């Protein structure tokens, strides 16, 4: 049993500081959330409404009815889903090779994928723009999927390698003794076991691609405008409508944030593993 003095002590030394950390982390977003619920007229006259009694969905209604925001969400979804599919598809076999085989050039190839992940966006974005223009890919979903894949593929190769490393090799060997070929062992034994890892890697790629802005701005355009670019265009020409902008920010951030909260436990496990060992 926790006695009273220790409880007070715990609240003072642990709960309150923890509350402070959480407020710091989510405070700005809460402020935007409150702004988005404040009707435009009130926002201009009195500022952000703190009390829920004065809240309304006015900004959200305007967002959906007056702008093409839902269409932008659709574009973001196509780009993010496409990046996830491409990223996972080419990475699974590569990760299996890195995990199960020791071959000449393994280290160099692994480092190559790590190195690719460190390349500055700004170095790639200019030549990618020129290349996409040459192939007539500007302002298409393909352009954004390809650009996002420059980050997604190396990332998922590394993540999946560490997930597959955690599956005992004896399972492949048992399957192969039972007459499976290597590829069958990969497909029937390893893939199902690695599925949780594959799903969380996929979720992470999806979030990153959904949140991506610079490629979407540079390689997208009038036909393919993702949410992140659309939010910026909500800034009016003469004055900024903060209520509308906040509503756009909240809706645009929602899919990624919810996915993150659902998958956070496993995601963080995967993401921190490398750093903790290092």
């Amino acid at each position, binding site marked *: 049993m926790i006695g009273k003095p220790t409880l007070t002590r715990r609240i003072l030394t642990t709960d309150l500081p923890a509350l402070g950390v959480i407020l710091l982390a989510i405070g700005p977003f809460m402020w935007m959330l409150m702004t988005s619920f404040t009707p435009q007229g009130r926002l201009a006259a009195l500022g952000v409404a703190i009390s829920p009694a004065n809240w309304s969905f006015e900004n959200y209604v305007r967002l959906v009815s007056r702008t093409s925001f839902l269409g932008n969400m659709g574009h973001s979804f196509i780009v993010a889903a496409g990046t996830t599919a491409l990223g996972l598809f080419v990475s699974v*076999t590569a990760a299996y090779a890195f995990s199960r085989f020791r071959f000449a050039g393994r280290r160099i190839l692994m480092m190559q994928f790590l190195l690719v992940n460190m390349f500055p966006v700004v170095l790639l974005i200019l030549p990618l723009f020129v290349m996409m223009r040459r192939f007539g890919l500007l302002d298409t979903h393909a352009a954004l999927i390809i650009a996002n894949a420059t980050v997604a593929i190396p990332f998922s190769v590394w993540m999946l390698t560490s997930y597959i490393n955690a599956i005992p090799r004896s399972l492949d060997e048992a399957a192969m003794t039972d007459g499976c070929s290597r590829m069958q062992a990969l497909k029937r034994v390893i893939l199902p076991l690695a599925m949780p890892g594959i799903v969380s890697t996929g979720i992470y790629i999806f979030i990153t691609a959904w949140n991506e802005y610079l490629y979407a701005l540079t390689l997208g355009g009038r036909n393919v405008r993702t949410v992140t670019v659309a939010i910026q265009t909500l800034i009016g020409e003469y004055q900024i409508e903060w209520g509308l902008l906040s509503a756009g920010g909240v809706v645009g951030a929602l899919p990624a944030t919810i996915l993150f909260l659902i998958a956070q436990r496993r995601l963080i496990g995967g993401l921190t593993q490398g750093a903790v060992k290092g």
Partner: protein
Amino acid sequence: MSFSAALPDQAAPTRTWRNRLLPYGLLTPAVVVTVVIVFLPMIEAVVTSLYAFVLFRPNAARFVGLDNYMKLIQDPVFWITLKHTAIWIGLTVPLQMGLGLIAALILNREFPWRGLARALVIIPWALPSVVIALMWRWIYDANTGVLNEILLRLSIIQSAIPWLADPDKALYAVVVTLTWQGFPFFAVMILAGLQGIPKSRYEAASIDGASAWRQFRHVTLPGIAGVLATAGLLRIIWVANSIDVIFVMTGGGPGYATQTLPLYAFIKARQNLDFGYGTTIAVMFTVLLGVVVAIYIARMSREVER
């Protein structure tokens, strides 16, 4: 000697050959795609930097050798943005790490809603950069921003400060935003590191009568040193590269007040469509950052041999 013995002998080499080639086959899709979408563009970038190339005059492109690089080191804006990049990294990464360390130490204690707290603290990390940038523009707003309001009410300042329009303050205002965005990453990494420290070491230390500070200094810090180094290196690279938040918050302005080197490259190419010079800046930045990347790669390289 006999035919029957030769057959399996022949079959075996083919199988080992296939087995030897298998990993390369499995790697081919990923390697080919990365070569096409990363390495070819990168080579193209290096080539472009040797040309005078303005996007809307592609026919006027001509080879100029290292002229762009000579121009770059004589460009005063290059040195200004290089200085900003150093301030940017030098402030943001330590601040993120410090705040992340404090958050991790607090969240590592026992309390009933620890799981919830650990999930919530990551939210800044999951938000799109654009949303973060606009959110903070709203907070920093000179007329109606909440930061000015709070500071005025507490009488810390006497009149509203235009945080992002003041050349002396804008860079630091953006540093604060990026610190906020990045501290959860450190918190999460350090938390994982803290959990790897055996409880027995703390017990041993407290039996020896070590104070809380000494325990932190001699047990906690050595226990998470590896994590701090890896996460710190990763973060230097990440912060150096991240230009989206600054771009949306200030666009590099006022003047050049918040321009870092990669942002300068991006703006040069985007606004003036001067791809030759813009790429030159980007290549130069990559070379400078390459030092940090090399340290990180060398560190990780020791890992994968196992």
